[in-house]
């Protein structure tokens, strides 16, 4: 399991240096402002701002292209029918299949929102190491139980995946070929059950290891206040987000 997400976190752009708390709040505000866009007249501004931030981040286009494929296809699968089934105004029609204006506009709006949001999310993830992100969540008040769990899940995901691969290999080498039948389901249930059992047993040892190094004593990291530049970036983002919200209300 390789994600390629951390590939470009070592670039030196302003976005990479932006204090993570400010970056997380600022970009999240933008993301939600974009999610609230209902009027097609706001689309150019949304896309323009997104492009500007992407350029500022210095992330290569290749990063965007490789990460956009899967969610893009998924969205197309869900929304591609819209221009043919939704709305009254028929733009064009052939043998009972008609292209409708409202549906088409809806598709354009959904796609623009989707691409802008995904891009900003990619900028956030591509310029912040995952660990930093997790710690930032903690300093922003996400309960310790959640962030502790998050880090542990992240840590053991790959190993659990590896052990699943190995067990599946060993099943195959003993002639297992999945078909829709009772035996297959039974085999896969045993496989999953084994995975859970082993994870559970390992968790006991992991807990012991954590205890012997002081887990549960409770600590807080000191937080340095963010620099001026970071705060300016944050307020720019918040103002923009507010602008979108107001424009949305005015345009209806």
């Amino acid at each position, binding site marked *: 399991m390789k994600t390629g997400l951390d590939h470009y976190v070592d670039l030196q752009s302003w976005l990479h240096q932006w204090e993570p708390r400010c970056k997380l709040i600022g970009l999240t505000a933008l993301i939600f402002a974009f999610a609230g866009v209902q009027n097609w007249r706001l689309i150019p501004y949304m896309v323009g701002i997104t492009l500007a931030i992407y350029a500022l981040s210095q992330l290569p286009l290749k990063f965007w292209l490789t990460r956009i494929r899967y969610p893009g296809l998924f969205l197309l699968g869900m929304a591609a029918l819209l221009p043919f089934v939704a709305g009254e105004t028929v733009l064009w029609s052939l043998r009972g299949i008609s292209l409708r204006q409202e549906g088409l506009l809806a598709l354009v709006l959904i796609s623009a929102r989707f691409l802008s949001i995904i891009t900003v999310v990619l900028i956030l993830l591509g310029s912040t190491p995952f660990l930093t992100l997790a710690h930032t969540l903690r300093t922003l008040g996400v309960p310790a139980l*959640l962030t502790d769990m*998050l880090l542990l899940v992240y840590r053991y995901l790959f190993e659990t995946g590896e052990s699943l691969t190995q067990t599946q290999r060993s099943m195959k080498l003993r002639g297992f070929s999945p078909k829709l039948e009772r035996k*297959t*389901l039974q085999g896969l249930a045993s496989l999953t*059950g084994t995975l859970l059992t082993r994870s559970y047993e390992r968790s006991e040892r992991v807990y012991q290891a954590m205890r012997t190094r002081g887990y549960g004593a409770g600590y807080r990291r000191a937080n340095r206040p963010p620099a001026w530049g970071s705060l300016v970036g944050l307020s720019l983002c918040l103002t923009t987000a507010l602008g979108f919200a107001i424009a949305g209300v005015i345009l209806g």
Partner: protein
Amino acid sequence: MHIPDGLLPAPVLIGGYALTGLGTWYSLKQINRRPDPSAETPKAALLTAAFFVASSIHIPIPPASVHLVLNGLLGVVLGYYAFPAILIGLFLQAVMFGHGGLTTLGVNTAMMGGAALLAYYLFQFHHSCQGFLGGNRALALFAFLAGALGVGLAALIFAFLILTTLPADVNAGAERVAIYGLMLAHLPLMVIEGIFTAMLALFLQRVKPELLKLG
């Protein structure tokens, strides 16, 4: 079943986050009432990782194959930890693989986690039915129901959300047909997920019964 970014309007997204916040708060409150919650964090975390990985297992349904959703099973095994576990699982999925989205994280978690919690409550009834059904039969029956309910409920909410919030109005008749269609398409999946969950509960009962008593 993940709703991607860009599809749902902002109020629904915010509502989703509100529900997820409430669900998480409630779960954490239940968890913190236990004698030593920090001792169970690694357990919940490693099991979450295992569930995450296990949901990549494919089951052949000719001509294609489907992957398991497992949120019913997750509820059965993790109990109140199911909600935070799903929140974290979906967060990682969105961040690492681009499945689902960050804006829809709240909606997706509420949908999957709510169904998982209900599956957990449903599963707890097997204790009271042990008398007249017999231990293993009650276990298998309620695991089946929990597994089927987990996917079924999530699929229902999914279909409802998608169809009612699309920006342009699709006519009401077509909408209803689409919902019924989606539900019908999910019936085999519910049955398979139910059978799978029952088999797994029996496996755990034989090999590691503690795992069914965590919740």
